[in-house]
């Protein structure tokens, strides 16, 4: 133990050396090491006991979710705490929360890809998986929150004998399109990016079932030059396609509120504010998940401290944006001179829901300020706690927006106070069950790190030339052909 502790200093690649960039993969690994590490997790015949503990817990929570949904559908929406002024409660809060979390993955894989942020390769698969599962959780809530679940398909423009179409003026309908498009593209992007890695697992598989299963999933990937060529083009195209979606999906979600007439919802700042918040919460969730994962699966050399530090920086930036949005809202409420608007924000800060508002501000604005200090950014435990607090804060942000605005709108006679029931709470808790069940299955059976991509940013990928610097250098002169192809070949050989 002591030796290992002594060795750990090499894991810190966060120092900025003006001469050369620190490597993104540590420990002097070869391509083969990377493959062995990542595939080892999938191939290990002995599942770690801890995995079973978590999986059992998640599965029971998933059962709770199922039971709560069944109870809801058999009894009615009244089992939730909703009432007359507050027609949307935890279900919509949870929906926005999960959709927000679902932002990090595609942002990391698409936008950072386009921006040539090579450090993304270690975490993008992981984050994308998280995105897909978060969007799956998010998708449940709008579906079950309607009064008559059995006709929820009317929200889709399905041709029918009644010639009834949905109302294209409704932001809720835009939401349906935005979220389903985002879910589809994210899924494609994730799956497509995984194909070379699935092929690697297939090639290494010994058990016939695994051979067949991964064989099917790998879609006949042979790692030919042509395959790589098409893969790279498609990946680039999908990244370009996904990039506007990252911005649009939460913008459209914010339209649910911004297009309405309710003070506290009806504001033009919502789209950028929501997107910033979504990225903020998405990164927080990635950090929350990745820190224990890298520790348990011993991936500190691939998911390095530098990766975590970078994410902390992004959280700092987006947290500041969110904070700016909060203050802008207050300023506009005062500056507009609209009495209803003014009241809504005073009421948020000092009314019956002030407790929620101040939780939100503390977690989302104050906590990220820690990340100005490098010592805190590189302290894994602190980072992990902060990321959880940010998740809590971002949930409360949605709660404050949805509930406090509705609870006191125009007519004081109709003001109310919403409290959740146990069904509200357990449904939310249960949605974590779904999320973690899927996530744990992925960790056990899927390549949680994009091996092909990681190899592409390793020094070995560049004819032994220098280190990482090339890629951050001014002119990457020798991008002769498909670098990852070479990397891949070495592995396959």
């Amino acid at each position, binding site marked *: 133990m002591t030796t290992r502790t002594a060795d750990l200093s090499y894991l810190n690649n966060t120092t900025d050396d003006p001469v050369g960039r620190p490597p993104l993969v540590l420990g002097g690994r070869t391509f083969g090491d990377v493959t062995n590490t990542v595939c080892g997790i999938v191939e290990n015949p002995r599942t770690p006991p801890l995995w079973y503990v978590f999986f059992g817990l998640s599965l029971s929570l998933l059962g709770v979710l199922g039971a709560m949904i069944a109870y809801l559908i058999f009894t009615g929406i009244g089992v939730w*705490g909703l009432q007359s002024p507050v027609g949307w409660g935890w279900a919509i809060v949870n929906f926005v929360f999960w959709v927000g979390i679902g932002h990090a993955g595609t942002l990391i894989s698409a936008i950072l890809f386009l921006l040539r942020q090579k450090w993304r390769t270690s975490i993008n698969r992981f984050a994308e998986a998280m995105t897909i599962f978060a969007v799956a959780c998010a998708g449940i809530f709008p579906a079950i929150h309607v009064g008559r679940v059995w006709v929820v398909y009317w929200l889709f423009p399905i041709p029918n004998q009644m010639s009834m179409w949905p109302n294209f003026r409704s932001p809720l309908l835009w939401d349906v399109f935005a979220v389903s498009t985002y879910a589809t593209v994210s899924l494609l992007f994730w799956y497509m990016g995984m194909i070379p890695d699935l092929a690697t697992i297939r090639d290494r598989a010994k058990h016939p079932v695994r051979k067949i299963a991964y064989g099917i999933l790998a879609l006949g990937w042979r790692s030919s030059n042509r395959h790589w060529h098409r893969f790279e083009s498609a990946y680039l195209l999908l990244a370009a396609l996904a990039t506007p979606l990252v911005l649009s999906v939460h913008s459209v979600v914010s339209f649910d509120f911004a297009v309405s007439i309710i003070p506290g919802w009806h504001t033009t700042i919502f789209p950028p504010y929501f997107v910033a918040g979504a990225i903020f919460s998405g990164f927080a969730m990635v950090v929350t998940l990745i820190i224990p994962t890298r520790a348990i699966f011993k991936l500190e050399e691939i998911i390095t401290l530098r990766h975590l530090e970078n994410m902390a920086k992004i959280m700092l930036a987006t947290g500041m944006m969110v904070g700016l949005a909060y203050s802008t809202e207050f300023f506009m409420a005062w500056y507009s001179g609209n009495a209803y608007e003014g009241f809504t924000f005073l*009421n948020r800060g000092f009314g019956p829901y002030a407790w929620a508002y101040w939780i939100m501000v503390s977690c989302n604005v104050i906590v990220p300020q820690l990340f100005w200090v490098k010592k805190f950014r590189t302290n894994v435990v602190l980072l992990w706690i902060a990321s959880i607090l940010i998740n809590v804060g971002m949930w409360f942000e949605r709660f404050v927006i949805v509930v406090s605005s509705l609870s006191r709108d125009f007519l004081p006679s109709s003001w109310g106070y919403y409290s959740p029931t146990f069904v509200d709470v357990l449904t939310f808790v249960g949605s974590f069950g779904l999320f973690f069940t899927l996530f744990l299955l992925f960790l056990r059976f899927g390549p949680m790190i994009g091996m092909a991509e990681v190899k592409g940013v390793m020094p070995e990928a560049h004819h032994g030339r220098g280190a990482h610097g090339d890629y951050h250098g001014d002119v990457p002169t020798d991008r002769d052909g498909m670098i990852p192809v070479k990397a891949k070949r070495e592995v396959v050989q």
Partner: protein
Amino acid sequence: MSPLNTTESGHKYWRSLDELVRTPEFEEAVKREFPDDEWDRLPPASRRSFLKVMGASMAFAGLTGCRWPAEEIVPFAHRSADRVPGVPQYFATAIELAGSALGMVVTSFDGRPIKAEGNPEHPDSLGALTATTQALILEMYDPDRSRHSVQRLGGQDFSRTWADFDPEFGSMLGADGAGVAVLAAPSSSPSRKKMRQAFETRFPESSWFEWAPVTDRNEGAGMSMAFETSLRVVPKLDHAQVIVAFDADFLNDHPASLRLTRQFAAGRKPSAETMNRLWVAEPGMTGTGAMADQRVAVSLGRVAALLGAVAAALVNDHHVEMPGAANGLIAQCSADGLVEAEAAWVQQVAADLIAHRGDGTLMVGRRQPPAVHALAAVLNNALGNVNRSVTYVDVGAQAAEGIEELVEALNGGQVETLLILGGNPVYDAPADVGFHEALSKAKHTIHLSLYRDETSQLCEWHLPEAHALESWGDGLAWDGTWTLAQPLIAPLFDGHTAIEVLSRAIGEKAVGYDIVRSTFADAGLAGSKSLNDAWRSALHNGVVPGSALSSAQPPFSSEGLATAAAALTALAARPAPTAGRPELVFAVDPKVFDGRFANNGWLQELPEALTTITWDNALLMSPLTARDMNLKDGDLVTVEASSRFIDLPVYVLPGPASFSLTVWLGYGREGAGQVGNGVGASAYRLRTVGNLWSVDGPTVTSTGRRYALATTQDHWAIDLIGFESRQLRVGQLIREASLDRYLEDPETFRHMDHHPPLVSLWKEKVYEGEQWGMAIDLNACTGCNACIVACQAENNVPVVGRDQVLNQREMHWIRLDRYFKTPEGADLDEIDDAQVAFQPMTCVQCEMAPCEQVCPVAATQHTEDGLNAMVYNRCVGTRYCANNCPLKVRRFNFFNYHKDLEEVSKMQFNPEVTVRSRGVMEKCSFCIQRIQQVRITSGNENCPITDGEITPACAQTCPAQAIHFGNLNDPESVISASRENPRSYATLAELNIKPRVHYMARLRNPAGNSEQDAGGPPEHGHDVPHGKESA
């Protein structure tokens, strides 16, 4: 009979344990020809099978015509040949409440009564009904009503039939009625009077007692003091410029409240000459107090002193000449001992009465002792108001002994058989009388009642009573107009009326129809018509026109007034209540009346106008009283008087007199049924026969527990931020001004809103044909709640229960927003009194409806005539529309609220309106079914819809006629004209929603020198352009 059961071997062979032990039930069954007494009971029927049974009954009823004269319900007899299924019919009938008959018109749909409206021909209804009386429909279909007679023997209940009862009845009554006592509620019914006489003739030794917890006995006694005759006071508010109400909630708690409301509201037309002025002195905060132009809070015990002070002011300051007989009484009046606010009020009242001699009226409520009524009669007389703004009629009340005498007789062993006709004395008799204990002293007790209630459960016999809508009956309106009641349906549960039971008692077994008709014939009301024609026309109209009693004006009785003087001296000496010795005042419940309607879900869930409390009663007190008594809103307290106590939650509202605590009667029922049992606490437990309406010095101790009252609006207590914002908004939402300010600048209300010009984002629809609109006159609305129940009955609005109301899920399509108003700069900690503003709020059918734009499935749509319609079938229940509704008038079916309804209750549903399922949004439709009905008729007849032809349920029943509905495209319509009225404004118009419901601003008319101005928010300068909107 025992040998039959014993064989030679000595063994007993038996078939059932009942047979073996020979229970009375078994004995009874052996005697009966058809042992199964259930065979002819109406089974819980589905709508379909109910119609079948009804249809068959009607067909067979025709067969019986071969041998016996059929009871006829006249309009039905006319129509049966060409009766169109599915087309509703309307029948006039009546209900007697508190000794006065109220005319109704009931809608019958294929033989099924579904909706009660007022009878426009009836003087006390004028087409309107109270919230309570409209709910009679629901009561009739109440599955908790008793369905058969019950005999209680040896602690066990046995179900019986009328046939079982009759022979027993004969033996219980004996030959001459010795030891027989009858207890009944006072009634104005001529048939009841006749049957009582017949009963007393047949059983000369019997005795007759009367009891009802809510009567106008004090008024009658006061009139007896003044005139030696028990007269009824009939106020004529249409002739009154100045109305002074002393503890008189005449807009809600008066047998003729509907007529008085109509006349009062008609007198609120804004002009300096014609607008009346209402002065109110009262201990609690009532609807009448909320309408007052100038109100003073005074404890119940000191109302007499206040009236005395007015009398003194009239005599001393204004030198009004009093009738000679009243000298002694007037001498007892003095203006001493008033606090500043009271003295100012008295001075102003006196001056106003003098300024309007002959056009004023002083009204005294039923809670005040007789001497106060007598004094008011003297003052009305001296001011020349009699026969102008107040008249007296003599209805010839029958003398009867009260419940105290009955208890005395019971305890003295003089009563062997007690026949209780209706009422529920075990529950509502004064606690100190001991009726409950005395009841067991009678050998036989018989109770005729709609429910097997507290009294029935203690009686030997319970007999099911026919509901008012199943009965023949008659009664007198408050002014004496002869009113007839006819059944809308055959008794659902084999009930009979009190008059039929009396007829059985004398062995005649006459049916209600014959009794009522013969009373009618005997009364000589036919005039020039044949009896048959007169009867038919009276049945058709529900009233005998012109049968109102002529006004009586007997001379004053100096002897009676001397008694009054003595009583007044004692009354005037009563000290004001203090924190150590508060005053507990009993109020008639504005919903469940004396408790008889406790099992009615519509009424239990109706938010009381001032407190918005549902499903409970509470101890109401003013904020400073609560502070000084160390109590808080929501504290559960024990109120104790004479070692009897009840637990009540405290509700704090501004307005009640200091240390005057009000509690509604009619709660805490134990035998009401599954709806009403255990709701609230019974204030009857503290009531004493000596002082029916108040308790001096009860002890109020906190239990230390808290209790959540299910109110539909925020409590008076609210956080400071909300409070301040509400203060800012209400002036915009409910616009008010003093009459003077309005006359000075009629445009004053239009200057009250600031908003930029309202521009439409898209091309607005141009309406051809009709586009509907509504106007609600806040100046007329008295907050009586009738519209809420009317809407509930018309539109199948579900009752959701206390828990759901607590969770703010009440379903009413129209609600009454209530706000309190205090002068600007008032110290929040010192507020004890406030003005009240009501605003009926329903879907305003926005032209630019925020709900329509956000519904993802287009389930809420604009119609061709401008309505914002809900398509229930299409609704998936996202609730987005409700969120986006700025008025929060949309209601969501969180559960299937109709799931557990019994079949009989479902018969009340209006078949024209969809019963909404779970998960669907609903809201006011402007009664679209009524619009469509008229539209179809007018289409068939090829004539245009005329103004006033369509009336939504709320507008139809509004006693103040505050709600107007019509076609905005018709320049001649009332609604178009109202839009031009300078008082017309739209709530939240600045949101550019273009509401189709406009409000007419409220005016207050305080006396000239009193600047209790009812200003709205400060006006902006005239140089600032204000928004114009086009809807």
